[in-house]
């Protein structure tokens, strides 16, 4: 079997081709909830764990995650499904709308519960850990009226779609006929999809938790090993045996996602493997959807199987590095994966994604520069992080396409600031910066000055925070002689580290007295 590695090549051209394609996602739209909790002890009522509930975040799940993922890759996505006319349905609709998905054709059925998966998580090193999952799923099939409205919308939506992705996430009805319980993907709906796709020429992709066999006649079925196994494809099946399954189900191709092992593709030419992107796994939830979205859209845009597989593997690899079902957008895919010269992650997935040596950073920024992107650079100790720092970084990021923060190491900070500094050690200062959305990259320098880092990176914009004159900005000559600019972001609100520490000290003294 050939293995096609996840290479460090830019996907820019392919992502450009994918942008704007019309895609219809038909299936089971869930609401995914992630509720942060803290284990505080045992319930006084019963010998069961007692959790203290914290913040909750909600995202579209199941077909919704797939739709959001396709939209994040630049597709124009229409959601087709049936959700309840309830608060959860409101949240799903709104979340999809925010994600850029057209929800006008999403049927809202009164009295029907919107499928909801609630995951209670507790904190753990490296990211939240799932503690408990609670599902709420409809047990009744959608009403006749809902299905009629769906069917009507389907015909309209598919008229100019390049791709239809059927996402059957119903697990309540068992492995019997599709939609045996409350799911949307029912025999009659699938028939309507096939007819409409045949008429419009839209490509048919599908995935099913329990009934992949119902997707016969589709071009590609994507599933994990368990799901594809339901088609009768064994993990060690020979090419001939696997092709027989394709013929039986009238499929052009199968794609089996194998988690950390990557994925396998089967078509008339036989098996081929897509190697995984090196990743630091935080949460695998939703990675399969990210993979499927990228694969389907790439193929629909005209990519060959190998290229589509590489892109999909990259998307899946990026998806596991974040907690929850956060989608992988085109911007993240445009950045090549980290080079082997990158340092190992010191704390968390964000650090792994963003912390780079100077050498690795230069190489990683090259495609962005080649595409005309502007690199913004700022530096500092960022010790005792405060709102002034945050405002500076947000303003800096807005000046270009990518923000690099060069951080003084502990040694450099001590040499510049004196005894007792830094207050917060380098790993934690890196972690704080990497955790900010405004920051794209963090690099640590050990010298007294950022001169070496600026000379190596030659940013387009050099940002300095505080009340400085331009001639006081270290690195100014290096940047300006290359045609770059220096931008001074003045202090606002009186936040600077010295004043901040003095205020903390006064408050501490007041507290003691």
């Amino acid at each position: 079997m050939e293995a096609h590695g996840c290479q460090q090549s830019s996907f820019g051209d392919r992502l450009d081709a994918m942008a704007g394609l019309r895609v219809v996602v038909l299936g089971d739209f869930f609401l995914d909830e992630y509720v942060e909790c803290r284990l505080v002890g045992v319930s006084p009522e019963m010998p069961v764990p007692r959790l203290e509930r914290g913040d909750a975040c909600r995202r579209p799940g199941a077909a919704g995650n797939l739709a959001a993922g396709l939209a994040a890759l630049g597709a124009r996505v229409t959601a087709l499904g049936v959700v309840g006319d309830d608060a959860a349905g409101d949240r799903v609709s709104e979340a999809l709308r925010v994600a850029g998905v057209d929800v006008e054709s999403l049927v809202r059925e009164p009295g029907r519960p919107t499928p909801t998966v609630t995951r209670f998580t507790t904190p753990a090193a490296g990211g939240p850990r799932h503690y408990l999952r609670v599902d709420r799923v409809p047990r009744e099939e959608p009403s006749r009226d809902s299905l009629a409205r769906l069917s009507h919308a389907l015909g309209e939506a598919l008229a100019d779609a390049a791709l239809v992705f059927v996402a059957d996430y119903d697990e309540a009805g068992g492995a019997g006929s599709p939609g045996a319980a409350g799911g949307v993907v029912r025999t009659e709906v699938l028939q309507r999809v096939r007819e409409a796709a045949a008429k419009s020429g839209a490509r048919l992709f599908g995935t099913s938790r329990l009934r992949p066999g119902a997707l016969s006649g589709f071009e590609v079925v994507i599933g994990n090993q368990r799901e594809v196994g339901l088609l009768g494809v064994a993990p060690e099946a020979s090419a001939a045996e696997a092709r027989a399954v394709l013929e039986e189900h009238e499929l052009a191709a199968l794609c089996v996602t194998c988690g950390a092992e990557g994925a396998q593709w089967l078509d008339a030419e036989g098996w081929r493997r897509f190697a995984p992107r090196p990743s630091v796994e935080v949460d695998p939830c939703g990675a399969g959807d990210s993979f499927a979205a990228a694969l389907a859209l790439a193929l629909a845009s005209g990519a060959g199987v190998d290229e589509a597989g590489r892109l999909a593997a990259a998307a899946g690899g990026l998806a596991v590095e974040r907690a929850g079902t956060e989608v992988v957008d085109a911007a993240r895919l445009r950045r090549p994966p980290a080079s082997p010269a990158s340092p190992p992650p010191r704390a968390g997935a964000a650090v792994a994604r963003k912390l780079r040596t100077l050498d690795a950073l230069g190489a990683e920024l090259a495609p962005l520069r080649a595409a005309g992107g502007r690199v913004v650079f700022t530096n500092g100790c960022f010790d005792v992080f405060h709102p002034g720092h945050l405002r500076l970084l947000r303003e800096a990021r807005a000046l270009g396409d990518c923000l690099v923060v060069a951080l003084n190491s502990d040694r450099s900070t001590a040499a510049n600031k004196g005894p007792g500094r830094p207050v917060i050690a380098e790993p934690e200062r890196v972690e704080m910066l990497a955790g900010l959305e405004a920051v794209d990259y963090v690099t640590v320098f050990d010298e007294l000055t950022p001169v070496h880092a600026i000379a190596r990176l030659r940013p387009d914009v050099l940002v300095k925070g505080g009340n400085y004159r331009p001639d006081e900005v270290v690195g100014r000559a290096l940047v300006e002689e290359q045609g770059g600019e220096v931008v001074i972001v003045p202090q606002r609100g009186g936040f600077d580290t010295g004043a901040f520490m003095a205020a903390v000290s006064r408050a501490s003294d007041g507290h003691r007295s």
Partner: protein
Amino acid sequence: MKSWEREVSSHFVVIGEFFRLAREEDASLHPSLREELERYMRVRLDRGKWIPEEVTTFHSEWYREFYRVLGVRDPYRSLKERSEELARELLAELAPRSLEAALRAAVVANRLDFGVARREDDPLPLAVADFADLERRPLWIDDGARLAERLEGARHVLLLADNAGEALFDLHLLRVLRARRPGCRLSIAAKAGPMLNDVTADELAAQGAGELATVVSTGTNAFGVPEREASAEFAACLADADLVLAKGQAHLEFWIRFGEPRLFHLAHTKFAVLDPALGRLPAGVDLVLSAERYAEGRPAWRRRPAGAA
């Protein structure tokens, strides 16, 4: 010696020469790097940013930055070789025989300094004429008699070297001392790595110093011997020595905050030195200065390796 007591120009004077020499080693170095280094220090001083209290700490860190930023290893190599050539010529001509003359010559040779005090394109700072009337030349502080007395009874003499070239005069001093006191153990300590035109332990060893004395690396390329950077070898040698001869301005500014009464400074001052016990030592004067003049009440030097309390 406190950093703020040192004239401000001394924080900048090395940059130009260092950069010029670095470009001889690596022509691709960008001219703007010099401007940026100057900018950094100017802003730091103008805006009253924190600087290390001790000038030797400040300058050690600051000059190390030049090496880091410019990525050069030893831009002063050629100047050091010229210094050594000149020192050999001078010694061959002078050949001071008495211990007194050798001591005085070692003090004058401290002028052979292409480092902090030198401006770009200065001519070579030493000639035979500078050594005229060695034994009658007045010193700003002259504790020579006390030193001679201590030398007669010393069991182990440790010399802390300063500049390349000058070090040959130091070795000559040790040679004269050995002839006079064959039973006296001799050690000579120098930096572990390049710092401006200061001699390194490796360079001393390459010059054959090991045949005359035990060559010891201080364990650092810093000015003086910071407690947290000192090698165990140096600490042991210092602990054993009952007489220490410290050459040059940097050792004067470093050791002056400690109470090491067995130490004598042999130096030609490049910058004024202020001290509560000594008052003001002007720039451009020669010293044979006993640490007993200031040591009382000051802490002893003690090695504190990184991570130790």
